[in-house]
């Protein structure tokens, strides 16, 4: 048996629906159709009345989820693409994110954002919005990079009492497979050492973890040991694990698929520079998408975001190779 990242997301939702009567799913085409990416395939049938098609009204969809959460439910919202959450943005950042702080009433909504670039998708179906949401107090932002995390973190997202922005990477949907779903998982808030190494720490998350691992593999054959840290969630961000890794390697490269200004890589760099300055043997570096919209054509798209190739170059530079 093998299970894809996408199937893991479906399975997590099926389990959440089965185990917790407070859970329901709301979003465009999530019902009988099973969602644009089939992440809710068959769920409407398996859980009648609990997987519901919405109008094309992102603001009202997220508002509805907040109300339902106030009333004790655990809604899972699917945005058809992460990019479209921009029109539901206000309800997320000003309503969901502030509710607990203002009233002490928690707001357990999970908002699934099919995110990230795939070739041919262009400026409006490729965005990574984790930095935008992480900037706001009151939100948890998860960025699972593995099938296992896609499954367990989504279950955790539903279980925790705070609003969660669940960034699932569309490129990983089909490309990533696991043999089975493990029973246990690390809790959100803990980063994972995806590969151990002593020469350089690469901090990554979501799809970039796999690019980083490919680089680690490549450089290992040349005798350089790269440690890859998978952040798993970018808010909270596990600075301790990053710092411990940098303490071991003395060198830091942060990689993010999103735009550079104020992105995850900026936040990681700022933390390490501020709190782990003495651990660094070389200037910390970062690699991000270029500062333009995400291009449509595969040639441009491949050059726009970091890839194993550009990460390898940056890693070699940083290592003086």
């Amino acid at each position, binding site marked *: 048996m093998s299970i894809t990242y996408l199937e893991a997301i479906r399975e997590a939702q099926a389990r959440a629906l089965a185990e917790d009567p407070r859970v329901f799913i709301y979003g465009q085409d999530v019902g009988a159709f099973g969602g644009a990416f089939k992440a809710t395939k068959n769920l409407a049938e398996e859980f009648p009345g609990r997987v519901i098609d*919405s109008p094309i009204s992102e603001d*009202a969809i997220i508002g509805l989820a907040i*109300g339902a959460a106030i009333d004790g439910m655990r809604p899972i919202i699917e945005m058809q693409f992460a990019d479209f959450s921009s029109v539901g943005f206000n309800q997320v950042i*000003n309503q969901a994110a*502030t509710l607990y702080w203002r009233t*002490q009433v928690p707001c357990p909504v999970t908002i699934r954002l099919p995110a990230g670039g795939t070739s041919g998708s262009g400026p409006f179906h490729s965005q990574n919005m984790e930095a935008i949401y992480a900037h706001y107090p009151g939100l948890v932002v998860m960025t699972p990079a593995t099938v296992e995390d896609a499954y367990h973190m989504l279950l955790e997202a539903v279980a925790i009492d*705070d609003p969660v922005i669940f960034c699932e990477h569309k490129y990983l949907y089909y490309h990533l497979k696991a043999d089975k779903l493990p029973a246990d998982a690390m809790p959100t808030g803990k980063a994972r050492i995806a590969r151990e190494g002593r020469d350089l720490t690469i901090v990554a998350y979501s799809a970039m973890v796999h690019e980083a691992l490919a680089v680690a593999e490549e450089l290992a054959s040349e005798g350089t040991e790269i440690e890859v840290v998978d952040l798993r969630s970018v808010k909270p961000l596990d600075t301790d694990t990053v710092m411990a890794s940098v303490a071991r390697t003395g060198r830091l490269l942060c990689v993010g698929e999103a735009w550079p200004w104020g992105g995850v890589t900026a936040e990681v760099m700022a933390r390490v520079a501020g709190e782990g300055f003495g651990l660094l043997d070389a200037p910390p570096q970062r690699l991000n998408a270029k500062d333009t919209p995400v291009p449509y054509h595969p040639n441009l798209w491949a050059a726009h975001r970091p890839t194993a190739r550009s990460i390898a170059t940056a890693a070699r530079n940083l290592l003086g190779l």
Partner: protein
Amino acid sequence: MVQTVASPKAGAVVSTFRDEYTNAFRWMLLARTLDDKFAGLYRAGKIHGGVFLGRGQEALSVSVGLALRKGDVFAPLIRDQAGRLAFGEPILDAVRTYLGSTLGPMRGRDGNIHRGRPREGLLPMISHLGAMIAVVNGILFARRLRNISGVVGAASIGDGGTSTGSFHEAINLAAVEKLPLVLIVANNQYAYSTPTSRQFACGDLVDKAIGYGVDSQTVDGTDLSACLEVVGEAVKRAREGHGPQMVVARLLRLCGHGEHDVADYVDPKLKQSPVGRDCLKVAEEHLLQQGWADARTIELWRSEMVQKAEDAVATVQREPAPDPYEEDWRALSSQRLLEAREERPG
């Protein structure tokens, strides 16, 4: 939350229309008195930030608060002092939030009309107009998922607020889901300084209802009898399962947008027209005309309300202001997901 210490109806069972009207009038009077008190405190520099009053909108607002019952949901806006009180919001919640007392529901974190008790069905507005309607939808949707029926959710919106995308998405969604939402549109002729001619181009805001496929009514917002009846009927119909109901009231904002605003842009003709009548005065005259109360009784009520307002303010003024060192400065409820990297206030 419906019965509170501050309740001026003193436990009486409302049975006749006379009683209902009188009861409503007393809530209106309390709301107006409290609003006047806040205006006074504002002028005296005792309030941080703005003060936003419901002057002229009490008849409409109180009708909402009275038509709802325990278990219902209410998302008031900035001119709903009367409706809040009638729905059961303690006077102290209002005063504590305006003065920033830590004992209030917002504990100094949020202020003025940004207050509520979501667990008790009173939603704390965010400022973004139109944004609360969808939240009411969500509660109603959740009830239906749990097979709880007979619940109504009311949301307020102004003439200006109808221009927001949020308004549109939420009422449309409520119609699609056939939720028991009652949308109370207070057309008070202005959105801050902007007249309705710059806000919409339909004949009457009630015309919008047909485009959503929801039932609707208009009402003279200066006439308490009419408001009680029309709003009451809308709430009843929603409760009976007829889907969303829209009530559009004609009235005039009898104050500035906030107390900082002298509102000299308001058309004097409107002030002199029927729409410019003060619903509280109209109701008082009605009481007198009908012989439901005499002038002396009303005077007594007035003093009673002043006393309530003064007492509440006096109480709250002795209460502690927030202390930044006591504040826990966390926006997440999940303790284990907090990052405690920020230092204490320096």
